C-alpha cells in the first residue's frame, strides 16, 4: 500500500463520523427551526376579563383562587366578569373532513355548481333565509386534519412539525376551547374521527371514535357517526357535541373532487344538518337551552382529492354558523356566503359566544357577523376582550410593549383625539393602535353614560378595534416564534462540516483511483481534458440545484429541473459516444470493436432519452401547471379498463425484463433458475392481486385482499433476505482449477495478485444476482402498492436503470465512476418526480399506505408511505449493488498489489460516498436557504414542505447506502472466507 492511499478502516471511520455530524446537525436544526409548541404556557382565567398590564402580580393568587371554585361558580364568575350574556347554552360542532367551502358557498361571488347546490338543498335554504351564515375560513398550511383541529380549538397556528406528528397524535396540552368548556363544567360528547380522542383523552363523557384508517371506506365510516345522532339529540345531558365525518375526505382521496360519490355524500351531510336543525335549533326547547350548530371543515382538497399544501383549493375550508338569531336579517343570499375569515377566528368567536376566556395562544379575531344580535355595548366589550387577549400575546413576544404605559384604573387620554397616525416600529404601531381603540372605547362609554353617544363614535371605535386586531393577528401569525440562533448555527455548522468531510473523502478517493488509472492507461495522457465537459456539467448540476432552491417556483416545479438536467447529461454522453465513434468503418479489429461499442452506447442513450421523456410526460406534477394534460390524465379519462391492462402489461414486461437480466448472467444456471422461479412466483402473486382486487376500489379492504397482500409482503421479504444470506455461500468457487491454470499461464507476479483477485468473479456474480433480486423485489412491491397509473413509470424506471447498467458496463474507463453514480442518483431524483411526487405534502399517496394492513398501525403505515414515496431514489440506491458488479473496475485492481481492504474500498467507495456527498451538499445548501428564507411569504407553504422532503430523502439515502454497504461487505466476507478455505484445502491436497 502506498503512502497516499488511506486504509479502509480510516475511510469508514471518517464516513461514520461525517454521518454522525450530519444527523446531529440535522436534528438540532429541525428542532430549532420547527418549533413543536410555539405557545404561552398556562390557561386563560378570569384575568382575561381585565385589561392587560395590571394584574401580572396577582396572577398567581388568582389562579389559586380559581382552583377552589367549582365549575358552576367559575361559570357564573365568568358571566359576571365578561359582561356579555352567553347567547347559547349548547354547541354542536360538526366537522366535515375535507369539505371545500366552495362546494357550499361558491367561489368568487358565484354560487356553487348546480349539482352541488342540489346536493345540499336544506343548507342552501338555511343560507338564503338568513338562518345560517357561512364563511370561507382560510386554513393555514399544512392542511392536514390534526393541526387544523388544533387551530380551530386553540386559535393558534401550530408549528410545522405537527404534520410529522399527524400519524402519532398526541394530547393537546395548550389552552383550548374544549379545556375552557371543561373548566366551566360542560359535558361533552364526541362522535367521529378518533383524532379528537387522542387530542383530548378522557375529556368526553361519551364517544364513538372511528378510525381514518380505512381510506377506501366511504359509507360505514359516516354511518358509525350518524347512528348515535338521534339518541344524542334527544338527550339533554351534554353541552358540546362534536361530530366528525370522515367520509367526504375519503371520497376525495379515492375519486377527487368530481367523484361520482361526492353528490350522495353531500346529500348525506345535508340530511344530518337538517336533522340537527329541525330537532334542536328550531324547536325552542327552553329546558335544553339554546343550541348553536357550527359546521366546519378542517381543510379543503385539490382537484384530485389530496390535501396538505397551501393552494386555494386546499385551504378553502368552511365555517357555517346555523342558529344565530341575526337581528339584522341577512336575507340576501350573497352576503351570507361571501365573507372570508381565517380558520383560527373560530376559536375566539366561540369563546366569546359562550362566555369563556379566549384561549391564551389564540391569534384569531372574532367574526363580526356572528355578534350582530348583541347590543352595541356588548359588541364593543367582545372586541375589547379579544384585543386584551391578543395584546397579552403580543406583549409576551415583544417585551418592550408593556412597561406600564397605562394604569389599571382607566386609560389616560394621552393621545388626544385618539386617532393619531401610527407609525414606527411594530411595537409602537401595535401599542398606538391598541391605545387608539381603548381611548375611543372609553370616550364612547363616557358619552353613553352621559347620553351623548352617537353612531359615528361607535363605528369609529369598532373600526379602531378591528384595525388593532387585524394588525396584531397578522403579525402574530406571521411570526410563529423566535428561532434559537445558537442551536440553528450549530446545526448548520455540523452539517457543513459533514459535507466537507464527504467531499474530502470523495476527492481523496478519486485522486487515488485516478493515479491508479493513469498508471494503467499511461498511453493517453490528455484524456483529462477530453472528459471535462460532462464532468464539469455534473458538478454544475449541483450548483444549478443549489441555486434553484432559492426560488419558490423552482422548488414547486422541481421536476422540470431534474428532467432538463438529466436529458442534457444524456445528450452530453451522446456527444461523447459520437466522439469515440471513429466515423469511418475501418477494417482494423480494434476500430470495429470500438465502433460497435459506441453504436451500442448510442442506442442505450437514445433509449434512456426516450424513456426519460415518457416518464416526464407521465405526470405533469408541480403546483402551477398541474391542470395541463399529461399521460396519466389521458389514461384516466380513457377508463379504468385501459389502466388495468396497462398495469398488467407493465407487470408482465417487468417480469420479462427481469428474466432477461437474469439470463444475461450465465455463469451458473442452476442458481439463476432458482431466482427466476422465485421471481416468477411472486410476480404472478402480485398480478393476481391486481386482477382480483384492485379494480373495485370500494371493497378492497376485505379480508382476502389483505391476506394476499400480506402473503406477498412475506414472500418478497423472506425471499430477498434468503437470497442475500444464501447466495454468497451457494455461489460455486472454482478456485483450484482456475488457480492452477493461471499459475501455469502467468508469471509469479500476477499470480500473487490473482490470489487477491480471485474471489472477484464470484463476488461480481453474487453482487449481480443480489442486486437484481433487490431491484426486482422492490419493483414488484411497488407494483402492488403504487396507484395503478404508476405501474408503467415503474417499469420504465427499471428499464432505465438496466439500460444504464448495460451502458456503464460497456463504457469501461471512458466515464469516471463517480460521474456514473452521480448520474444514477440524478435519474433516481427525476424518477421520484416522474411517479407523481412533488414538493408539496399533498401528493403523498395515503391510500396505498394501508394495503395489506389488518389493523391500524402508525408505524407500519408510515413505513409503507415512505416506501411508496421514495420508490425511485431507493430503487436507484439498490441498483448500486448491481452497479458494483457491472462496472468493469479491473483496470483499478491490476496496477497495485491490491490489499483486500483496499479492494473493498475501491468497490464500495464511490457508490456509497457519492450519494451521501451529493445529498449532504443539497441538505446543507437547503438548510442555509431555509434560514435565509425564514421570513419569506412562502416559508410554510413551499420551503418547509420541501425541507421535510429533503430530510426524508436523507433518511432514504442513509438506508439505501447502509443496505448497499452491508450487502457488499457480507458478500465479500463470505466469499473471501470460502476462497481461503478452498485454497487451504487445495494446498493440502497438493
Amino acid at each position: 500500500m502506498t503512502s497516499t492511499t488511506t486504509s479502509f478502516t480510516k475511510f469508514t471511520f471518517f464516513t461514520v463520523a461525517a454521518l454522525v455530524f450530519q444527523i446531529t446537525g440535522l436534528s438540532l436544526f429541525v428542532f430549532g427551526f420547527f418549533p413543536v409548541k410555539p405557545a404561552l404556557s398556562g390557561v386563560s382565567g378570569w384575568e382575561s376579563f381585565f385589561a392587560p398590564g395590571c394584574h401580572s402580580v396577582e396572577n398567581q393568587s388568582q389562579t389559586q383562587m380559581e382552583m377552589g371554585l367549582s365549575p358552576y361558580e367559575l361559570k357564573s364568575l365568568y358571566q359576571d366578569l365578561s359582561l356579555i350574556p352567553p347567547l347559547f347554552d349548547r354547541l354542536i360542532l360538526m366537522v366535515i373532513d375535507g369539505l371545500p367551502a366552495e362546494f357550499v358557498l361558491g367561489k368568487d361571488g358565484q354560487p356553487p355548481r348546480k349539482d352541488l347546490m342540489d346536493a345540499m338543498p336544506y343548507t342552501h335554504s338555511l343560507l338564503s333565509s338568513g338562518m345560517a351564515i357561512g364563511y370561507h375560513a382560510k386554513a393555514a398550511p399544512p392542511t392536514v386534519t390534526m393541526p387544523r383541529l388544533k387551530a380551530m380549538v386553540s386559535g393558534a397556528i401550530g408549528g410545522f412539525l405537527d404534520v410529522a406528528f399527524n400519524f402519532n397524535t398526541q394530547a393537546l396540552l395548550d389552552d383550548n376551547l374544549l379545556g375552557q368548556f371543561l373548566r366551566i363544567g360542560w359535558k361533552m360528547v364526541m362522535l367521529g374521527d378518533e383524532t379528537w380522542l387522542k387530542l383530548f383523552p378522557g375529556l368526553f363523557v361519551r364517544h364513538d371514535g372511528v378510525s381514518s384508517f380505512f381510506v377506501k371506506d366511504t359509507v360505514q365510516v359516516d354511518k358509525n357517526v350518524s347512528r348515535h345522532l338521534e339518541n344524542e339529540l334527544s338527550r339533554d345531558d351534554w353541552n358540546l357535541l362534536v361530530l366528525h365525518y370522515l367520509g367526504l375526505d375519503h371520497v376525495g382521496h379515492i375519486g377527487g373532487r368530481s367523484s361520482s360519490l361526492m353528490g350522495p355524500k353531500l346529500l348525506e351531510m345535508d340530511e344530518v344538518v337538517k336533522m340537527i336543525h329541525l330537532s334542536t335549533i328550531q324547536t325552542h326547547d327552553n329546558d335544553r337551552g339554546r343550541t348553536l350548530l357550527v359546521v366546519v371543515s378542517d381543510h379543503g382538497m385539490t382537484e384530485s382529492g389530496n390535501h396538505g399544501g397551501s393552494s386555494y383549493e386546499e385551504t378553502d375550508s368552511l365555517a357555517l354558523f346555523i342558529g344565530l338569531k341575526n337581528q339584522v336579517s341577512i336575507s340576501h343570499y350573497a352576503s351570507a356566503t361571501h365573507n372570508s375569515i381565517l380558520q383560527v377566528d373560530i376559536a375566539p368567536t366561540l369563546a366569546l359566544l359562550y362566555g369563556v376566556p379566549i384561549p391564551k395562544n389564540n391569534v384569531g379575531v372574532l367574526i363580526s357577523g356572528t355578534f350582530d344580535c348583541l347590543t352595541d355595548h356588548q359588541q364593543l366589550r367582545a372586541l375589547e376582550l379579544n384585543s386584551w387577549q391578543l395584546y397579552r400575546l403580543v406583549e409576551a413576544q415583544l417585551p418592550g410593549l408593556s412597561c406600564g404605559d397605562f394604569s389599571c384604573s382607566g386609560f389616560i387620554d394621552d393621545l388626544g383625539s385618539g386617532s393619531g397616525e401610527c407609525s414606527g416600529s411594530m411595537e409602537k404601531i401595535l401599542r398606538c393602535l391598541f391605545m387608539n381603540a381603548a381611548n375611543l372605547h372609553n370616550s364612547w362609554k363616557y358619552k353613553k353614560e352621559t347620553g351623548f353617544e352617537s353612531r359615528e363614535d361607535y363605528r369609529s371605535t369598532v373600526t379602531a378595534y378591528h384595525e388593532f386586531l387585524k394588525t396584531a393577528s397578522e403579525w402574530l401569525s406571521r411570526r410563529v416564534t423566535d428561532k434559537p440562533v445558537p442551536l440553528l448555527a450549530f446545526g448548520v455548522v455540523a452539517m457543513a462540516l459533514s459535507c466537507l468531510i464527504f467531499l474530502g473523502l470523495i476527492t481523496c478517493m478519486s485522486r487515488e483511483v485516478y493515479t491508479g488509472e493513469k498508471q494503467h492507461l499511461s498511453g493517453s495522457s490528455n484524456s483529462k481534458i477530453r472528459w471535462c465537459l460532462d464532468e464539469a456539467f455534473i458538478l454544475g448540476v449541483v450548483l444549478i440545484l443549489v441555486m434553484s432552491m432559492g426560488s419558490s417556483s423552482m422548488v414547486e416545479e422541481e421536476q422540470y429541473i431534474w428532467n432538463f438536467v438529466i436529458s442534457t447529461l444524456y445528450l452530453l454522453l451522446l456527444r461523447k459516444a459520437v466522439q469515440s465513434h471513429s466515423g469511418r468503418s475501418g477494417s482494423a479489429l480494434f476500430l470495429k470493436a470500438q465502433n460497435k461499442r459506441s453504436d451500442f452506447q448510442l442506442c442505450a442513450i437514445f433509449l434512456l432519452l426516450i424513456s426519460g421523456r415518457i416518464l416526464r410526460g407521465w405526470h405533469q406534477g408541480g403546483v402551477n401547471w398541474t391542470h395541463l394534460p399529461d399521460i396519466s390524465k389521458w389514461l384516466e379519462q380513457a377508463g379504468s379498463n385501459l389502466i388495468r391492462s396497462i398495469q398488467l402489461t407493465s407487470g408482465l414486461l417487468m417480469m420479462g425484463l427481469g428474466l432477461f437480466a437474469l439470463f444475461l448472467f450465465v455463469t451458473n444456471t442452476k442458481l439463476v433458475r432458482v431466482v427466476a422461479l422465485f421471481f416468477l412466483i411472486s410476480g404472478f402473486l402480485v398480478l393476481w392481486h391486481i386482477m382480483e382486487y384492485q379494480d373495485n376500489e370500494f371493497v378492497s379492504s376485505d379480508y382476502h385482499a389483505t391476506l394476499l397482500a400480506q402473503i406477498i409482503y412475506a414472500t418478497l421479504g423472506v425471499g430477498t433476505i434468503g437470497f442475500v444470506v444464501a447466495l454468497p455461500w451457494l455461489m460455486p468457487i472454482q478456485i483450484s482449477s482456475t488457480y492452477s491454470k493461471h499459475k501455469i499461464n502467468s508469471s509469479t507476479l500476477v499470480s500473487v495478485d490473482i490470489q487477491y483477485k480471485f474471489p472477484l468473479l464470484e463476488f461480481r456474480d453474487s453482487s449481480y444476482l443480489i442486486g437484481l433480486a433487490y431491484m426486482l423485489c422492490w419493483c414488484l412491491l411497488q407494483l402492488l402498492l403504487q396507484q395503478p397509473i404508476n405501474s408503467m413509470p415503474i417499469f420504465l424506471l427499471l428499464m432505465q436503470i438496466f439500460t444504464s447498467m448495460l451502458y456503464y458496463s460497456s463504457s469501461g474507463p471512458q466515464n469516471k465512476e463517480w460521474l456514473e453514480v452521480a448520474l444514477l442518483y440524478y435519474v433516481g431524483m427525476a424518477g421520484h418526480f416522474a411517479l407523481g411526487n412533488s414538493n408539496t405534502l399533498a401528493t403523498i399517496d395515503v391510500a396505498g399506505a394501508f394495503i395489506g394492513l389488518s389493523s391500524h398501525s402508525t408505524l407500519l403505515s408510515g413505513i409503507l408511505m415512505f416506501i411508496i414515496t421514495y420508490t425511485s431514489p431507493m430503487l436507484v440506491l439498490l441498483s448500486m449493488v448491481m452497479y458494483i458488479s457491472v462496472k468493469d473496475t479491473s483496470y483499478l485492481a491490476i496496477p497495485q498489489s491490491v490489499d483486500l481492504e483496499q479492494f473493498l474500498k475501491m468497490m464500495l467507495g464511490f457508490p456509497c460516498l457519492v450519494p451521501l456527498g451529493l445529498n449532504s451538499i443539497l441538505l446543507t445548501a437547503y438548510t442555509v436557504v431555509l434560514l435565509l428564507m425564514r421570513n419569506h411569504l412562502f416559508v410554510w407553504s413551499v420551503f418547509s414542505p420541501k425541507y421535510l422532503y429533503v430530510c426524508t430523502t436523507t433518511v432514504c439515502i442513509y438506508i439505501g447506502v447502509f443496505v448497499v454497504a452491508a450487502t457488499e461487505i457480507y458478500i465479500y466476507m463470505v466469499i473471501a472466507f470460502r476462497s481461503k478455505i478452498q485454497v487451504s484445502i487445495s494446498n493440502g491436497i497438493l
Partner: protein
Amino acid sequence: MLEPSGREPAVQNHGTEPTHGGRDEGKEKKQKKSSIAKASNAENSSQSLSALQVFSIHMICGLGLAIALWMAHNLYSINVISDPSCTLRLIWVSLSLSLDFVVLFFLYEFVCSPSSDCRESNRHTSLQLVSTQSSTVLVLESCGRGILALPVGALVNALGAIVLGAPVGIEYLPKTINWSLLMSSFMFVPAASVFGSSSSHWQRIFAHTKPNESLEYMICIPAHGALIGAWFGAWPMPLDWERPWQDWPICVTYGAITGYLVAMVVSLGFALVHGGRQHLKRD
C-alpha cells in the same frame, strides 16, 4: 483515452479504400485529403477568410435577422410573443435566404475561386483547376445541401427539444416545427452547405468542437452559441411570473437569438485575432 482526430492520418495512410460515400466527390475528397491534407494545411491557415470577409458574412446574417424582425414588427405587426409561429417562420425563412445569399456570393467569390482556400475548395482540390462553371455548379449544390439540411436539422432539433422537455401536443406542433427550423438554420444549414455529408467534419465540429480555421470558426461558434443560448433560454420557463414570454418556445428563441448574436461577435473577434496572428506569422 482514444483520440480519433489524432489518429486520423495514421489510419488513412493505412491504405484502406473508403467504402462509403455514394457521391464521387466523397471518394475524391477522401483520397485527395489523405494525400494533400498535410501539405495544404500550412497553406490553409494562412489563406483563410479575412476579418473583413467574416465581418461581412456575419453582417449579412445579422441583417437577415434584423429584416425579419423589422418585417414582423412593421409589416405584419406581430412579434414572437403575439404570434410565435408566424414570426419564427419569418425569421427562419429570412435567415436561410441570407445564408443562401452568403453561399452564393461569398463562397462563390472567395471560397471557390482557385486562388482562395477554404474547407470547400480544400475538399475539392482536384477541381481547383476546373472552370468557374463547374464551381458554380458546386456552389449551387452546396446551396441545395443547405436547403436539404434545413428539415433534417430541424428534425434533430425538434427531437432534442422534446427530449429536453418541450411540450408535445397538436397546439404546440407549429411552434415546435418553426422553432426547430430556426435552430436548424442557425446550426446546421451553414455547416451542411460547407461540409456536405462529410461525417468526420461534422464530428470534429459538433462532437469535438475543434474548428481549425476561420470558416470553421464561423460555422462552429455561432452554432454553439445558438445552442447554448437556447439551453439557457429555457430556464425561466418554470418560474411562476406568469409572463406571456415564458411560454414555449418564446424565451428559448430569445435565448437562441441572443446566443447567436453574441457568438457572431465572438467569432468576429476570433477572426480578428486569428488574422492578426497570421499576419504576424507571415511577416
